[in-house]
Structure formats: structure tokens, C-alpha cells
């Protein structure tokens, strides 16, 4: 009864919202269903034969979820997932009610859901997931998520709620330590010792002498290992199989995310041939605003990168900035961006020395330029207005990279999709 009532309610609210032309109100049907039909979500998800898989962690959730969903689909699974940017209950309820049949049946085998650290923990009290992938715990927007130990604890508790398998990062000392005694089988992904220097951990990001971090390979067997990467190709080892694959989703952090995705899919579907699985990564395209490339009318490419904390900013700088690239940095200070600018001072921008940043933009354009001043990186233009900044930036010849905080990314993404005069 609950399944039918909630589904019909969700569908009619979604219909009403669409009629009023507010396509962005993804969460509203979920909000209404949550209030009127409590227990709807667990009741619906319990029907899925392969249950629920949760993907959580500080960085890489959206990209990794996209990879996992596409790999599972390529191997015949019908996958329910949550739309990008709505990883809270209401977004999930909205998509469940809209994708269910009118009789309340969900025509899927498995749900793969991206959740932020706090919500994931809460979700496990409603429904035990079969698999949980905990990607990493890093210092994030401290005004929203709290300190890194708090974040690691939330992720660890979520992982320990898994009934069939835990997948986590062997190189994240907080997360790997937390699951060492788990009763559920643990599948680790990691990088080979020679690559560790490209993947500084949270404590090393702010260590006083980052050039000599105490890098130690994790002493656990790896289900999936990133053994090498060069340019846009990455090499993975699954068991005895070693395979190299060219990826659309580039950047060293995404090669690490792909290792996580492989480990999770392998745990869910252990019978897939490893070499075939690795090859399938080639098909995956970057997720919304996460290294997504737009072609501009002059034929140049513009890459849009979300940066949301020191780790993701540092990874973006290391992966995407070449000497010849034009760079714009757009920083807002709404709640979803972090209202506190402190995090910008935990990013080392000295790798940009010798370059001029074309533009800083967003409500904190001046703060960003001030940050760069102290790393001796000059800024040509400061333009708080994002549309004006984008227009100026797109008029430059050559390839371009934008680093943008969350709401700035959403704004720029929408403008780039419209592509008016760009």
C-alpha cells in the first residue's frame, strides 16, 4: 500500500511541478512523499534483488558513481541511481517515485546511490546496504561537515553497516584502519608504491614539509591496484590480470576513482572477466562539471572542474594545468561552496608560479586573487560577475580550464550549456 501511495503521490507532485515549469525542483516530490508516506523509501528499495549500494567519501563520489553505474549497465544490470547534485533523501525519493511503475514496482536490479557522509550514515539506519564504497576522508568544508576525524567516523560507520561487502581505499589510513576488524568482507583498492607520491593524503596536504611525506604502501592485499598512468591512459591490476586502458575521465584522482569503481563492480559481479571490465572503463565520460569539456565556437576546448576542498583543488591543479593553458578560478561563498575562505589557504598554488591567471570570478573573486598574491601568482582580471567573466574568458584564444566552487560551477555549467555567444 505504502509503495503504491508514495509512488502515485511522487508522480503527481512531479507532474504538477513540471506543469508550473520549475524543472529544477527535483527535490519537491521527494519532500512531499517523505512527509505523507513515511517509510516509503526503504519499502521500495527492499524489492531490489541486488539491494542497495552506497558510494560515499569526501571527493570523487559523483564521478565514481557514474563509472559504477555505467560498468554495471554494460554488464546487463538494470541500475537505479540518484541524479547528480541531489544526493539527499528527497532527491532519491523523487527519482524512485518517478521511475517506479504505477503499481509500486521498481523495474531495477540494484540501486547505486551517491550520498554525502552525514546522510549516508543516517540512511543506513533506515536500510542496510549490501555494499558500501568509502572513497576517502579528507578535510572538507569545515563549516558544513566538521573536522576530518568526524568525517572519517561517519564514513566508517556507514561502511560497517554493509551486509555483503565493504570497498575502501587501502591508502587512506583513517578508513582502512576502521574496517580492519569488520565482519563483512573488505575489498581494498589502492595505488602501487611508486605512484603514492601523486596521491598525498589529508595529513600530508598540510604537513610542514610536503616534499618528504612518510609514504608507506598499505600492507593489505589489493583487489584492484592502479599500477601506472601516463597522459590519458591508466594501467590496472585485478588479481593476475594487468590491463591498460585509455580513459575519457582523466586526471590522476580519477584514475584512482576508477580503481575504486572496478573494485566495487568486481565485488558485486565477481564473475565478470577482469580484462573485459577494465576495458569497459573506456566508455565512461566525465560527470557533470567534473572535468567536463565544452567545445567553443572558435574550436578551442574549455574544461570545467569542480573544486570543493583543498584535496580536490590540489588534484585539479596537478592534473589539468599545463603551461599553455588559460586558467580562470571562480569562487562563491554560498553554503554549498563553504562560506569560509580558509580552505583556499590550505591549497598550495606555487605550482602556478610563472603563469598568469586570466581571471578570478565569483562573489569571492577578490579573496581568490589575494590568496594568489601570497603565492606570487599574478591575476590579470578580477570579475565577480560570473557571466561577464565567462564571456571574457571564452574570447581568449587557446585551450582553457576553469576551476569553480560548487555554485559557481553550476552557474557556469548552465551558461556553457546554453552557449549563447560563447
Amino acid at each position, binding site marked *: 500500500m505504502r509503495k503504491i501511495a508514495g509512488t502515485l503521490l511522487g508522480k503527481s507532485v512531479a507532474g504538477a511541478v513540471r506543469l508550473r515549469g520549475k524543472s529544477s525542483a527535483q527535490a519537491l516530490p521527494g519532500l512531499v512523499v517523505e512527509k505523507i508516506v513515511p517509510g516509503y523509501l526503504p519499502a521500495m528499495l527492499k524489492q531490489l534483488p541486488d539491494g542497495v549500494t552506497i558510494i560515499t567519501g569526501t571527493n570523487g563520489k559523483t564521478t565514481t558513481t557514474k563509472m559504477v553505474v555505467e560498468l554495471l549497465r554494460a554488464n546487463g544490470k538494470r541500475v537505479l541511481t540518484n541524479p547528480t547534485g541531489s544526493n539527499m533523501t528527497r532527491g532519491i525519493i523523487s527519482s524512485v517515485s518517478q521511475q517506479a511503475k504505477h503499481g509500486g514496482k521498481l523495474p531495477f536490479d540494484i540501486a547505486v546511490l551517491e550520498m554525502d557522509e552525514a546522510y549516508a550514515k543516517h540512511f543506513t539506519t533506515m536500510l542496510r546496504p549490501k555494499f558500501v564504497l568509502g572513497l576517502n576522508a579528507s578535510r572538507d568544508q569545515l563549516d558544513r561537515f566538521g573536522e576530518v576525524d568526524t568525517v572519517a567516523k561517519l564514513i566508517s560507520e556507514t561502511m560497517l553497516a554493509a551486509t555483503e561487502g565493504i570497498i575502501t581505499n587501502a591508502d587512506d589510513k583513517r578508513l582502512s584502519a576502521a574496517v580492519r576488524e569488520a565482519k563483512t568482507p573488505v575489498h581494498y583498492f589502492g595505488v602501487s608504491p611508486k605512484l603514492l607520491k601523486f596521491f598525498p593524503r589529508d595529513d600530508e596536504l598540510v604537513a610542514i614539509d610536503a616534499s618528504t611525506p612518510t609514504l608507506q604502501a598499505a600492507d593489505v592485499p589489493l583487489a584492484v591496484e592502479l599500477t601506472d598512468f601516463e597522459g590519458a591512459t591508466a594501467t590496472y591490476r585485478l588479481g593476475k590480470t594487468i590491463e591498460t586502458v585509455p580513459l575519457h575521465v582523466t586526471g590522476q584522482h580519477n584514475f584512482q576513482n576508477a580503481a575504486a569503481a572496478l573494485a566495487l563492480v568486481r565485488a558485486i559481479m565477481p564473475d565478470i572477466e577482469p580484462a573485459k571490465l577494465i576495458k569497459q572503463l573506456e566508455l565512461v565520460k566525465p560527470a557533470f562539471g567534473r572535468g567536463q569539456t565544452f567545445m567553443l565556437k572558435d574550436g578551442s576546448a574549455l574544461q570545467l572542474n569542480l573544486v570543493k576542498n583543498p584535496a580536490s583543488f590540489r588534484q585539479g591543479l596537478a592534473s589539468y594545468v599545463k603551461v599553455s593553458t588559460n586558467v580562470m578560478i571562480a569562487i562563491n561563498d554560498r553554503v554549498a561552496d563553504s562560506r569560509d575562505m580558509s580552505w583556499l589557504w*590550505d591549497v598550495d598554488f606555487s605550482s602556478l608560479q610563472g603563469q598568469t591567471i586570466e581571471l578570478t570570478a565569483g562573489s569571492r573573486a577578490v579573496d581568490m586573487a589575494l590568496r594568489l598574491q601570497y603565492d606570487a601568482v599574478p591575476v590579470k582580471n578580477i570579475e565577480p560577475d560570473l557571466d561577464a567573466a565567462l564571456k571574457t574568458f571564452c574570447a581568449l584564444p587557446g585551450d582553457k580550464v576553469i576551476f569553480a566552487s560548487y555554485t559557481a560551477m553550476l552557474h557556469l555549467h548552465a551558461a556553457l550549456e546554453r552557449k549563447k555567444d560563447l
Partner: protein
Amino acid sequence: MKLHVVHIYPNEMNTYGDRGNLLVLEKRAQWHGLEPVIHYYSAGDLFPKEVDIVLGGGGQDSAQSDIQKDILRIGNKLHTLVDAGVPMLMVCGTYQLFGNRFLTVDGKEIKGIGVFDVETIGGAKRLIGNIAVETEEFGTLYGFENHSGQTRLGQDQPELGKVARGNGNNGEDKTEGARTRNAIGTYMHGPLLPNNPQLADGLIRLALQRKGATVQLKSIDDELAVRSRQNAAKRSY
């Protein structure tokens, strides 16, 4: 001329971008024609012999209890430096440890070194937002506060300044931070010094005065900081 800056507990107390305060002091000292020498002091180390400025940052609760034993060990040394007029900037967690004691939410007592006659009680509510503070010596200071500890000043303990916008020490008495001789304790992150270059230069000037140096500070192009302060003045909590 050398300017010895000691950053205490850089690995344990480093949340909230407080590394930025050190970077600002280091760069501004260079721009003023000085030769900054950065010393990192971690638990168990010998305290550096030459000290002109001391900086401390915020930390996670776990880190705070880890370093408590060590800070009590070097408490006398720090008191001597404060008495000698060494300028210090202690933010958030180290501000609390420079007080008399900190009572955590779960009732644990963390003893401090008592440079500031203040006491902090862990609160259930976090005070988070853009803060502005009026001081006599350094004018308006802009920062971002994010703390659950509520701090009360002892009767004769001067504050750093009066809260113009935000909560400050406890959200009630309009005080923010504490000042003992040239040592400053504060809840202001942001980090504090980039948006308040007058305070950064103030710390450098106090350090030079104490050394008896007659170095004239140079004029620095602070146009970006001036603009960021204009924006900060208009921002809401």
C-alpha cells in the same frame, strides 16, 4: 635583519587554513626587507632559542588533548616569552589552550597554561559566520568564526576587541579574543592575517621594537586586501 617566527604544533593544530597566517607573515617580512626564519615546534621538540613571533592554529578535539601534555611542559617557557613582550597570535584551539582550562561537551577538563585568564566551556551550538571586531590598536578586524567552545574572560583580562558583527568569545558579552601584553588569542579564522594586513604588520612592528631594531617598514601594495576588506564590511553574518 632576521625575524624568527615559531609556528607551534603545525602538524597537530592546522585546521581552518591557519597555515595562511604563517605564509602572510613570511611574505610580508620579506616584502619589508627582513629575513624571515620559520621554525616549526612539534610536541617533544626542543623549543627554538631565537623567537620573535609565535603563531598557533586551531585543531581538532583529538589533537587538542594530544598536545595538552606537551603545552603544559613548555608552559613556563611560553610565559617567559609573553612577559618579555614577544608578539603571539593564537587562533581557536591554541587560544583555548593558552587559557586556564577548557571543559569539553562530554565533561572532560583540558588544563591550559593560563597566559590568558579565560575559561572555555564546550557548547552544543557551533557559532559560525563572518565576524567583524573593533580593536583600538589594529582597527577593524574581519574574520570567520567557527567554534563550539564558549569563552569567558576573567575580571581583569582585556579582550582583543569588541564584536561589531557576529558572536566572538561567547555570543553574549560582545567581547572577542583576549590580549595579554603582546599575545593575542582569537577565534577568528579566514585566515585572519590576509584580510588584516595592519595586524600582520603590527605583529612584525612589535617584534622589531622588542629587538630594539629601528627598521622602517616598507609600504606594500595592499590593494587586494583593501578591496577584500571593503567586501567584508558589507557581508552579513
